[in-house]
């Protein structure tokens, strides 16, 4: 079933942000030297650094996100901040306006593992519930190489990434993902553009302790 609250203006903020924030300068073709200058924004660094320290592994800090997101863990739009016993994490940013729409971006990391995790598909028919193990990320449709990241694009994803387009890549023996929700009037193309932009903006934050 479609995610709750996903209605006509969902992710409108993303479209507004792309135009309004003037962030076009670091789109495709960005010089490598400029990419190397990227820093996790000062107002967001502390949260990402705490996360890296907590899981004892590098994490990716987004230096650009669709408006109104600011990439601050613990900030106004960060509604999911979850670390599992296996040290995998899910950081989610959600903007939701009743009757208007939703914008949703997830960043995940799975330290010391590169296999695609397994999710449970739950199907209840006439009171009988069936659970089936399925890959959390399916239907790889393309690959892209951006700012040193080799990402695979997955279009059929589960759990918090359901109805999202998801980019997954491996770094240092760990699996990382970035995903965004597709909802009207934000098109698949627009979501991919947002993801491309965010992927190019990622900065690795290493544990300091």
């Amino acid at each position: 079933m479609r995610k709750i609250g996903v209605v006509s203006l969902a992710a409108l903020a993303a479209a507004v942000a792309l135009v309004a924030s003037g962030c076009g300068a670091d789109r495709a073709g960005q010089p490598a030297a400029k990419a190397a200058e990227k820093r996790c924004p000062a107002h967001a660094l502390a949260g990402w650094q705490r996360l890296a320290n907590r899981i004892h592994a590098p994490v990716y800090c987004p230096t650009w996100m669709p408006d109104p997101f600011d990439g601050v863990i613990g900030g106004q739009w960060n509604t999911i901040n979850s670390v599992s016993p296996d040290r995998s994490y899910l950081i989610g940013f959600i903007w939701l306006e009743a009757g208007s729409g939703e914008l949703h971006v997830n960043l995940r990391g799975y330290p010391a593992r590169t296999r695609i995790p397994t999710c449970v598909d739950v199907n209840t028919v006439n009171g009988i519930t069936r659970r089936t193990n399925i890959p959390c990320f399916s239907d790889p449709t393309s690959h892209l190489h951006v700012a040193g990241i080799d990402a695979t694009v997955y279009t059929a994803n589960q759990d918090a990434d359901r109805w999202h387009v998801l980019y997954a890549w491996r770094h240092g023996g760990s699996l990382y993902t970035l995903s965004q929700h597709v909802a009207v009037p934000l098109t698949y193309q627009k979501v991919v553009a947002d993801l491309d932009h965010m992927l190019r903006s990622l900065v690795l934050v290493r544990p300091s302790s």
Partner: protein
Amino acid sequence: MRLTRRRLLAGAAAGAVGAGAGIYELVDHLASSPARPVAVRRPREQHLLEGVETITDDGVEVLVPPLHHRVVTAKVRPGTDLRSAQAELERRLAGLDRRFEPTPAGLGVTVAWGLPYFRHLVPAAARTHLPVDLRATRERHRPVSALLDAVRFPSDPHDTVLEDNDLAVLLRSDDAGHVDEGAKALFDGFDALGQTSVRRGFVGGGFSGRQSLPKQMAVAAGVAGAELIPDGSQLFLGFTSTQRAAMGHGRIANLETLGYARDPHGYFRGGTTMHLSHVREDLEGWYLNFDFSQRVSTAFRPDLHSVRPNAQTVAQAPRDVSSERQVERTYHRFGAIGHSAAIQTSSRLKQRHVGPDGTVYEAGAAIPLRADFNTLDNPFAWSSQPTRDGMSRSPAAGVHFLVFNPTSDDFHRNRLAMDGVLPDGTKLRFPPGSRGQGFNSVLKTTHRQNFIVPPREHRSFPLAELA
């Protein structure tokens, strides 16, 4: 300057309107016609198209349907002199026959007539000449016509429009210009017929390794989820629907072939019935919510594990056909029934049958002959009742579902099976829109109507000469 939400929406709406208005102009630029065999005869059956090429895709024989399709529905204007109109329509149809061979390279023309025509314009002759569905009559202990009013099925929305057109004309060709010419030749300046809708669409074009026509058209129109359609896909939902084994062969869908109908005077011998519906398709829901293996399970059957990743043509030969018990078992095991598996319980021959012309149809052979095509109509390209029909100028992914069955009741049985109501009376219950119920969770039917397709010699205002 920040882009306001209102400005963004206004821009999106303007883009959508523009795409909707002119999108079909792209169709001839996007597709080139495949080479076609030459027709050698014009069959008695209007619904059969000659010269349809067969290719092999993923080791499965596939029929290559015409690229371009149009359906024009109409009502007979009050006060029409039926015999004059009969002669005039036949004159126009014969003109098209002389001009185009009945193949995809030429033009296929099928004229079908709805119950309102028979009830209101030729009621007495209809009572004595319309075929009777013997199987349905036997089961319901009352006379059941081979041509029935359309009904809403369990998975249909409550507001599905059950239409009341007098006739529908199906035009199909690899050349969109031929379809245009056909529509003009039949309807322009013909006062007896008032058009009620025009439905346009396309199918195929991807077997040669190119991007298919549905994919190109959907992307050009900017419909949601268009980019997710596999490049060579024959239809929006990603699977090939015209494989030879899944399509009714020869005259199997004729009224008389399987003995389902009794044609009291033989007037409709060589005819069939046709169901026409428009169904919206949620492409994002299909491709973002179902991974490939789930799409295979949903489109075919839940226990199908041997399909090559990203395959578009999946074997549906007689040996692959599911029985009621198999469908019931998958329902209890997986909480799901596959679209094809469920329909096969009623759409395939239970036993070998020899037709009146001596043709042998083996057990497991498909009975319905589909002629469905994708569309960007929302729901139609044009309607005489835009409010009732919910007309929108924004393009939307959908299918004009068109199928020929021996009787209307036979189609109803197939469609009920799709909803889990099997021919033996077994009812496999699902919540509305359940993923387990095949395609239903991503489909929404907006319109339905049944028609009868007379044989070629009675295609124009049937029974008018007896009225």
